[in-house]
């Protein structure tokens, strides 16, 4: 299953890639593929913007705007003027009340 094409915020700078393969290890959707000594963007539309590759890329060759893909959170973000977050869970401690 794939989501909307040509929409993800994933940016890959092939020139900055050292071929370490960190992105290959962490990507759950096979967005990258090994190509010789380096890595290439193989299926950009498979990306779900989880951010694992960008966080673990040692050279900053990968950039992605990671975030929650939850419609309700995004609507709430629009209404409150903040970034979408799914922080609906109560904090530690069973008696504390939920934040939002």
């Amino acid at each position, binding site marked *: 299953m*794939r989501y909307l094409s040509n929409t993800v915020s994933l940016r890959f700078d092939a020139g900055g890639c050292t071929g370490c393969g960190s992105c290959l290890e962490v990507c759950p959707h096979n967005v990258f593929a090994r190509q010789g000594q380096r890595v290439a963007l193989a299926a950009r539309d498979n990306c779900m913007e989880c951010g694992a590759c960008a966080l*673990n890329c*040692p050279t900053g060759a990968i950039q992605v705007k990671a975030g*929650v893909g939850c*419609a309700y959170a995004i609507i709430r973000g629009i209404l409150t003027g903040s970034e979408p977050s799914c922080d609906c869970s109560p904090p530690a401690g069973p008696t504390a009340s939920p934040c939002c």
Partner: protein
Amino acid sequence: MQPLDLPKAPARRQDAATCCGASSAPLSSRHPDDALPPPWVVGEQQTPLGQVPRISTVLTRADWLGAIRSRISAFRMAYRVSAGLYAVGSPGANAEVFVSANYKLSFDELRRHLAGLDAWVLVLDTRGINVWCAAGKGTFGTEELVRRVQATGLAGLVSHRRLILPQLAAPGVKAREVKARTGFIAQFGPVRAADIPAYLAAGCRKTPAMATVHFPWRDRLVLTPMEILPAMKLFPLYGLAVLLVFGLQPQGILFAAAWSGGWPFLLLGAATIGAGAFLAPMLLPLLPFRSFAVKGWLAGLATAVATGTLLGERLTPHPALSVVVYLLYPLLASYITLQFTGSTTFTHMSGVKKELRYALPVYLGGAALSALLLGTFKLAEWGIWSS
């Protein structure tokens, strides 16, 4: 007995305060010394650092029951285990260390797939949230992992320097930083705990299949209760509104009119929730188009057509109502299905934002037009204005 871990309370105090500023809120109702060990603790492992609880790799009826409850209610919010170190089997200094979240469903999934192994399990405090979501929020993150490795004194317990993390922890864990700060190599293992035995047998190497996330119907099915139930919570309110609309007559509110006009719409409302929250998620790969709003709209339209065919004029006694049935209800289903993007394994924020940019005006416009048509129907019904 509590899992091996030293400075727990101060850390929790900080956690609780960062979210709500409720510094006076109790940290936890459980005190380390007065709690009985949970039933899945089956013994103790003696280590140079002290006793470590040994955990069972067999899930009991209570564990499965807890899993079901956490799939259908807010029970999951409090379904957590204590963070710290646990033992599976009789692990020694060479045993692998598996890292997990303190959401009990995540913890249970890991331990049941470690059957027959000798291993350590390091549970992070992810505030009771599963691995992937917690990683996205950063609570299953570099900071917590480093802190937990140091707090447990893991370096004095194992002779190797390897941590095996679920692959889906990667959005929160920067492996290089963990290595730099603790000396431990954070290795991202398979996505699914079920693949751990094969992963170990292959010398801690993943096949592409082990590293890939899918979204089979079973995974979608277990998520649908939490789509259906929140929607159904609004159903009484919806029902009341429907009965009011149909009951409102020039003579006052008539119960007979409310019921005879209203019940087809109660049925359609329930069917629409079913379409958006169950049918569309289950048929996700079969429904055409990639947009969830469109998939949901198609499921809702099919449901409205089926209901309309079944009930005929009982549902649509007036042309204005026909338009409402085929305009408003598919849009409602579309909105409900769009909510499912938050539960899938492949949608992304940029896409959902894009969908909402197009869909929200359509939803609002459709709702406004439907309200207008409903007014037209009522006026015609009362004989004030006939179309």
